[in-house]
Each structure stands twice: as structure tokens, then as C-alpha cells.
């Protein structure tokens, strides 16, 4: 089987696993696990095989692996669907299959497979202690479907199939955020996520429609590799001074704004942390939000049509760059004031995605793609690590309350230690501390991930990709973007160190942290795997002019990914200022953060709150954007639905109309019955009957039963007949 045809098989195993679990496999947790993981392994193997083939192919950008079939006949034309593996989709495929596999394996341990079911656990709520998740099989069904959606999106060769995968992931995101649907916060979060991304999706759909109308096709190769098409789109004016290309680009970018949680549609991603941690890792770090970036990378030729490096940015690109850079800084300012371990990572994700968006906006295709890949690895690592921490904290809580109950039931504990009977939030970093000793493996892998996020030099992947972006910003002559991104990098390093310090360093700040213990092998193995990638993935993209080590390893990323574009971008010459800035920012931020947060005692308040004062409150409340949207959009929508449409239109007008028609019919019917049916119809029937009866009654008197009367009557009639015959008619 040729590689082209193998690509079709990559998304299928998880879909089949989803179906199999749904159709009966859910009855056995073991079977569901096997189905899902085996399917993912198959997809992983196929994906790596295809990637290996892709890497070995020369000029993959010009001659990608592709295969298509006709699918949807429309009048005279046919929409085809197919698969395409060019450099961009090849590297995306690479990190998607690795991260998904890691997350699948991690989920087995996270949901306590192998442990007995705690009878007090309620399906729809997270397990209280360490019983197996009651809806275990359902989870694996959903993440299998999710994997199918992402893989479909990655391998598709046209916008329609991509959109299908996009929407499947949106659905799975909804289902998985609200996996623990017994919690009201989860229910609200799932709806919020779906609706917010939907806003972006609507605009994306408009962009798709416009594109199809203008070009008659949705196939990537036909649109993006054809200079005539691109130029035609660029020259056709649309609205507001934009060309058609620009408009479509912005519309498609709107989809990215929704899916990749850029400002202003960023509000769903932090709340999406209501889902189980593997969900957060998979959907909101490694894969789904990356789909938004993948989209704008894919459509890079359309977004940058008419632009050449060194020129000022087009309107579309400027919008993208501004939103990306702004989001990067905006989200990182919020992250420094968050106390929930997962929320910090959520805002960190938003910020890093902003980096990638900004990179695309300024035309740094390779840098954005590079950062996409490395970010997926270390962000997934960080999320899974946080899940391990939370698990450890929950075990610690159960252990500490058990031991406290054994030790001194009913007695007042030592002064200032009432927490043995309280339920502390296992996700609040202020309850953690000192977990370095209790959970060493988690600590070291989390540290690697955190350093990668902060851009620690040389040995972490994040350094290389982030540096590339900064270099591009500097080299392209975009000082504003450069400064904003550098500031965001500083804050990133700071809050990362804050997070690591609060969680792992110092002394435990609660009994739960004191009694925490390391997670099982099933959860640690993926962490180790991902940390390896977080270290090494960056080495594939070392600039060939880098001091000392540049050129030792060929810049695979530059060469391979660069050929995805029709016009191969030139590598920018190496420059020192961005490198220095990177080093200062990352090391400085890390150092500052560690200094402040490494040894805070139990019950301490955040020093940052003291320094920033009321600003800290603003940051902690996320600039009140949620409240603003609630006021502007959510409440009016509810009013419209509940009051206007339901109470007024539906109940009063429509139901009123129907009731009116019903009542009128009843009255008409009653009148018809009274006026016509009873007197005329019944009357006629009765008349016939009564007449017959009356006639019968009248006539029956002749039936006297007396023979002689009958004889007399007979004689009479015979006489009449005879006289008639003889006299009248002789």
C-alpha cells in the first residue's frame, strides 16, 4: 500500500474505537481501555511511518503525498475530499500522535483504572478519593472521537474536511469539559466553551463560503499553490478597503480567534479547566487549540498574499499580529495573579498561542510552526504534571483526614491546624509546597516543562522556538511586536517560576501536601516521554549561524517546514539582540520568580498582591471580561430567549394562535352539531324511522290474528279484482 493511501487510515482507528466502545464496549472498562489505546497506537504507528516517509521525500512541499475521492456532487461540480501530507501537516501529525498517545496512556492512571469503584462516587461527579471513575469508558470513547477529529483535520486536503474535524473537536471539547456534569460550574463551562468557539466558527464558515464562491474550490493545493488564484483574490476588492483575500483571511482568522482562545474570545479556555486534566492537556494545550494555529499556518499564503519580507504589513497581517501580541501580553499579566495550578497553565496557553498568532501576523511562518510543535510537547507535559500533582494532593487529603480521624477524634487539634477536618482545594497552589520531596518524578518532569515554557537556554525546546519568534520580530523590523513579546516572555518566566516555587519548593503548606505521594507508573511514563521531547525537540531547529553550536545539526525545521510554502522564505541572518533579550528575559524572570516564591510559609499571602495593590485584584479577576460579556451578551441572550421568544412569542402569540384556532374549531363544530347535525341529519333519520313505525303501528291493526277477518279481506279483494277484470276490462 502506498503512503498516499495509508494516510487515509490514520484517523480511522480511534473512530472505530469510539464506535466499538459506544456499541457495547463500555460495559467493560478493561475492554474500553484496550480498544482506545490500541487504536491510538495504530494511528501513532501509521502517523510516524508517514512522517518518516515524508521526511525522506525531497521537495515534499511541491509534491506532497495526496489522494482524493469525489464526495459531494453539487449540480455540475463535485466536492472532493482527500488527504494531503506536506511538511506542515507532517510535523503537526508528528506531535499530535505523540501527545495523544501520551495522554491516552496517562488517562488510564488518572482515572484510577484497576482500583475498585467507590460506592459513594456519583456518576457525573469526580471520584471523592481514589475509586475508579464511574464513567470511565465514556471518557475513552470521547477522547477517541476527539483524536479522530484532530487527525482528520491534520490530514485533510480541503477546508471542508478540515472544518468537519474542527467541529468534531468542538463537540468533544463540549462533552469532555462537562464530563463531570454533576457540577454546575462544569455545565456552565461546557456551554461557554461551545458558544464562544461557535462565534469564531460562524465567521470562519462565512470565510469558507466566500472562498468557495470566489474560487469554486476548497482544496488547499488548488487555492494556495496557484499564484493566479491568489493574485485574483488579492486584487478583487471586497469591503472596507480590504481585498477579497484580506477579507477571507480575516474571516478564517476569526475561527482561530475562537478556537485558539485569542482575545476577545479567550474567555472559554480558563473555564474549560473544569474538565479532567487529561482533557485539559489534550484539548487545550496540545491539540485542539493548536488546530486554530494550524489553520492560519495552512492559509499563510492567502493571509500574506502580496506581502514580501521587509515590507510593511498588510491590513490582515497587521490585525493578526496585533491580536496575537496583545493576547500574549494580556494573558500573561492575568496568569501572574492566578492561584489555581491549572488556571495558570490555561492563561499560559492563551499567551503562547498569542505568540504563534503574532508570529504568523508578522510573516514568520517557520517560527510559528516551530513554536507550535514545541509548545504542544511542553504544555501537555505541564498539564499532565499538574494532574499528577492534583492526584497527589487528593491522595494526601484522604490520607491526612484518615490519620487525623484515627489520631484524635473529636479533640481540638493543635493551634492553627483545623485543616485536618476541612476539605482544602487540591488545585490551589497556596495549599501545596514542598512537593519536591514527596513527588520527585513529577517535580523533575514539571521542572523541565516549566523551563521549556520560560525559554531556558539551550537545553529546552521552548528556548529555540521562542527565540526564533523574537528573532523574526526583530529581523522583520517590527519593534512594537518585539517589545510586547519580550515583555510577555518576561512575565511568562516569572509566573512559571512562581508556579514551580509555590507548588514544589519550600515546605508543605497544608496537611494534604504533607501526605501527598507520588503517582503511579502509568501516569509517570508519559511525563518522562514528553519531557524528553521538551528537551530535544528544539534541537531540530538550531539556527545555522548560532554561536558555537550553530551548524552542527542541520536546521531541519527551517529546511523541511520552509518548503511548505510556494515561496521558500529566506532564513533571516542571525542577530544578537534578540538572543540577548531572550536570555535576559527568561533567566531574569525565572530568577525573580524563584527568589520571591521559593520558600513561602503556610498561611502566607501573595507578595505580588501587596506590591500591586488594587491592580492585582484586577488581574486576578481577569480584567472583568467575563462579567462584561455576561452583561453585554449572555444576559440579553437569556432575556431574548426566556422572555421575548418563550413567554411572548411562543406562549402568547403562537400558542395563542393555536388555542384560538382550536377554540374556533370547537365552536364551529358545536354550532354545526346543534344547527345541522342534530336537527337535519338526525332529524331525517329519526323521521324515516318514526314514519315507518307510525305506518307500521297504523297498519298493524289489520293483523288481528283472526282467520275469519283474513278470509273476509281476501274475499273482498278477490271480488274487487274480479269486478275489475270483468267489468272494467272485459
Amino acid at each position, binding site marked *: 500500500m502506498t503512503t498516499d493511501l495509508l494516510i487515509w487510515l490514520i484517523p480511522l482507528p480511534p473512530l472505530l474505537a469510539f464506535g466499538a466502545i459506544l456499541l457495547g464496549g463500555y460495559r467493560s472498562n478493561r475492554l474500553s481501555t484496550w480498544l482506545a489505546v490500541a487504536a491510538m497506537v495504530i494511528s501513532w504507528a501509521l502517523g510516524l511511518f508517514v512522517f518518516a516517509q515524508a521526511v525522506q521525500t525531497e521537495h515534499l512541499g511541491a509534491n506532497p503525498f495526496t489522494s482524493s475521492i469525489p464526495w459531494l456532487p453539487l449540480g455540475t461540480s463535485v466536492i472532493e475530499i482527500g488527504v494531503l501530507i506536506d511538511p506542515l501537516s507532517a510535523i503537526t501529525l508528528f506531535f499530535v500522535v505523540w501527545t495523544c498517545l501520551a495522554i491516552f496512556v496517562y488517562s488510564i492512571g488518572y482515572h484510577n483504572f484497576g482500583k475498585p469503584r467507590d460506592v459513594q462516587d456519583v456518576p457525573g461527579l469526580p471520584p471523592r478519593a481514589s475509586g475508579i471513575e464511574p464513567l470511565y469508558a465514556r471518557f475513552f470513547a470521547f477522547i477517541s472521537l476527539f483524536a479522530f477529529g484532530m487527525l482528520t483535520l491534520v490530514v485533510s486536503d480541503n477546508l471542508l474536511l478540515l472544518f468537519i474535524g474542527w467541529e468534531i473537536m468542538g463537540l468533544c471539547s463540549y462533552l469532555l469539559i462537562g464530563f463531570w456534569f454533576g457540577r454546575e460550574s462544569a455545565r456552565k463551562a461546557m456551554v461557554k466553551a461551545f458558544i464562544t468557539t461557535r462565534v469564531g466558527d460562524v465567521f470562519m464558515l462565512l470565510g469558507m463560503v466566500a472562498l468557495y464562491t470566489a474560487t469554486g474550490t476548497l482544496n488547499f493545493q488548488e487555492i494556495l499553490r496557484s499564484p493566479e488564484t491568489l493574485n485574483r483574490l488579492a486584487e478583487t476588492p471586497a469591503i472596507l478597503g480590504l481585498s477579497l483575500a484580506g477579507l477571507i483571511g480575516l474571516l478564517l482568522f476569526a475561527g482561530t480567534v475562537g478556537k485558539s482562545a485569542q482575545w476577545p474570545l479567550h474567555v472559554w479556555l480558563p473555564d474549560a479547566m473544569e474538565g479532567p486534566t487529561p482533557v485539559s492537556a489534550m484539548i487545550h494545550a496540545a491539540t485542539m487549540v493548536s488546530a486554530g494555529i494550524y489553520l492560519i499556518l495552512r492559509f499563510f499564503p492567502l493571509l500574506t498574499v502580496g506581502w514580501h519580507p521587509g515590507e510593511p504589513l498588510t491590513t490582515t497581517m497587521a490585525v493578526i499580529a496585533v491580536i496575537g501580541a496583545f493576547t500574549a501580553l494580556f494573558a500573561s499579566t492575568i496568569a501572574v495573579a492566578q492561584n489555581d495550578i491549572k488556571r495558570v497553565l490555561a492563561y499560559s496557553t492563551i499567551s503562547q498561542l498569542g505568540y504563534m498568532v503574532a508570529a504568523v501576523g508578522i510573516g514568520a511562518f517557520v517560527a510559528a510552526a516551530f513554536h507550535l510543535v514545541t509548545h504542544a510537547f511542553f504544555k501537555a507535559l505541564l498539564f499532565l504534571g499538574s494532574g499528577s500533582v492534583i492526584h497527589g494532593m487528593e491522595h494526601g487529603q484522604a490520607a491526612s483526614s484518615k490519620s487525623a480521624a484515627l489520631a484524635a477524634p473529636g479533640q481540638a487539634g493543635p493551634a492553627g491546624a483545623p485543616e485536618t477536618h476541612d476539605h482544602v482545594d487540591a488545585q490551589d497552589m497556596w495549599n501545596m509546597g514542598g512537593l519536591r520531596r514527596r513527588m520527585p518524578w513529577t517535580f523533575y518532569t514539571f521542572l523541565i516543562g516549566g523551563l521549556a515554557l520560560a525559554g531556558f537556554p539551550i537545553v529546552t525546546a521552548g528556548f529555540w522556538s521562542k527565540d526564533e519568534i523574537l528573532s523574526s520580530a526583530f529581523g522583520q523590523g517590527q519593534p512594537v511586536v518585539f517589545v510586547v513579546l519580550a515583555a510577555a516572555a518576561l512575565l511568562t518566566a516569572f509566573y512559571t517560576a512562581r508556579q514551580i516555587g509555590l507548588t514544589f519548593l519550600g515546605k508543605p503548606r497544608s496537611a494534604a501536601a504533607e501526605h501527598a505521594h507520588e503517582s503511579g507508573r502509568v501516569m509517570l511514563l508519559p511525563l518522562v516521554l514528553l519531557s524528553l521531547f521538551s528537551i530535544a525537540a528544539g534541537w531540530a531547529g538550531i539556527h545555522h549561524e548560532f554561536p558555537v553550536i550553530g551548524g552542527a545539526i542541520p536546521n531541519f525545521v527551517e529546511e523541511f517546514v520552509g518548503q511548505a510554502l510556494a515561496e521558500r522564505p529566506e532564513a533571516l541572518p542571525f542577530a544578537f539582540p534578540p538572543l540577548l533579550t531572550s536570555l535576559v528575559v527568561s533567566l531574569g524572570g525565572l530568577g525573580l520568580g524563584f527568589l520571591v516564591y521559593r520558600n513561602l510559609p503556610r498561611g502566607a499571602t501573595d507578595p505580588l498582591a501587596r506590591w500591586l495593590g488594587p491592580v492585582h485584584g484586577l488581574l486576578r479577576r481577569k480584567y472583568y471580561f467575563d462579567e462584561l460579556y455576561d452583561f453585554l451578551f449572555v444576559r440579553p441572550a437569556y432575556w431574548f430567549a426566556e422572555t421575548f421568544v418563550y413567554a411572548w412569542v411562543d406562549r402568547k402569540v403562537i400558542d395563542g394562535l393555536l388555542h384560538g384556532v382550536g377554540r374556533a374549531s370547537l365552536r364551529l363544530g358545536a354550532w354545526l352539531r346543534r344547527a345541522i347535525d342534530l336537527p337535519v341529519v338526525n332529524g331525517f333519520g329519526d323521521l324515516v324511522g318514526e314514519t315507518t313505525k307510525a305506518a307500521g303501528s297504523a297498519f298493524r291493526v289489520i293483523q288481528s290474528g283472526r282467520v*275469519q*277477518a283474513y278470509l273476509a279481506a281476501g*274475499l273482498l279483494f278477490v*271480488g274487487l279484482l274480479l269486478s275489475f277484470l270483468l267489468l272494467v276490462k272485459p
Partner: protein
Amino acid sequence: MTLLQGVFVVTALAAVISAVMVVASPRLVHAALWLVVTLGAVAVLFILLDAGFLAMVQVVIYIGAIAILIIFTVMLTRRVMADSGPQANRAWWLAVFIGIVMFAALLALLAQMPTWWQATPPPLAASADFMIEDLGKSLVDLDRYVVPFEVASVLLLAALIGSIVLARPPAETTGKTGPE
């Protein structure tokens, strides 16, 4: 008035009077006996009409069988019947009226015949013996009246069987035919 006419008048009067007694007599046995007288008068009339055989048949069948039968029946149904009391039913006046009307109508009808006024019968061509023989032969002659003869015999058979069946005493109830 010749002798024959006189005989006729006497016989006719006897017949009519006894017929009236038949239908007017309150006691049924008397009526039956008066019926015998009427039948005898009719037999005499047959003789006057040169139908001697018929006269004999009249006496034997009618008086000897039918009248006897009627007397038997009267005696068998005597117990409960009102042997005395008015024997005319409620609408007897209607019956009288019908009778009178019928009589008038018959006479009016018959009077229109041209032969009504025939005073003398034509002479008989054959002797009485020959007539009887001829009568007998005609009843079995295939070209003449064998069919009515045979039909009449079937009728008599049916009447025979029927009257036997009808007049049998009621069967002992074996419990099957009771109302319960």
C-alpha cells in the same frame, strides 16, 4: 208447475232452510245434523240432474264420511267449548252483509249469461250405465282426466298422512322439549 218442478222447489227449500239452520243453530250437534239434511237435499238435486252416480257418491262420502267426521270432532271438542250461548262472532253483521252482497253479485253476474234463460236441458245422448262407465274410463284415460285423478289421489294420501300426524296425542315430554 209440473211434478219435477214441485219436487225441485221442495228440495230446494229443504236445502236452504237446513243450510240456514246449520249456520244459525246454537248447538253444534244440531248444526251437524242439519248439515246432514242439507247434504241429503243436495243428493236429491243430483238425481234430478240425471247424475245418479254423483248422488250416491254424495251420500256415501259426504254424509257417510264427512258429516260423521264432523260429528266426531264436535264430540271430541265438546268439553270446554261454549255449547250454548251465541254462536255468532263479533262481526256477524259484516258476514251477513257480505253474504247478501255476494248473492246479489253472483246473480247479477250469472244473469248476464245468454244460457241463463234456458228452460229445458238437452236430451241425454247416453244411458246412465254408459255414463258411469264413461265417467270411470275418463278418469283413467291418458288422453283425458288421468292427471287430475292421480293428483287427487296424491292429495288424499297427503291428507291421510297429515291428519294422522296432526291428530296424534301429544308425545310424552321427555324433558328435552320442556321450557327449562
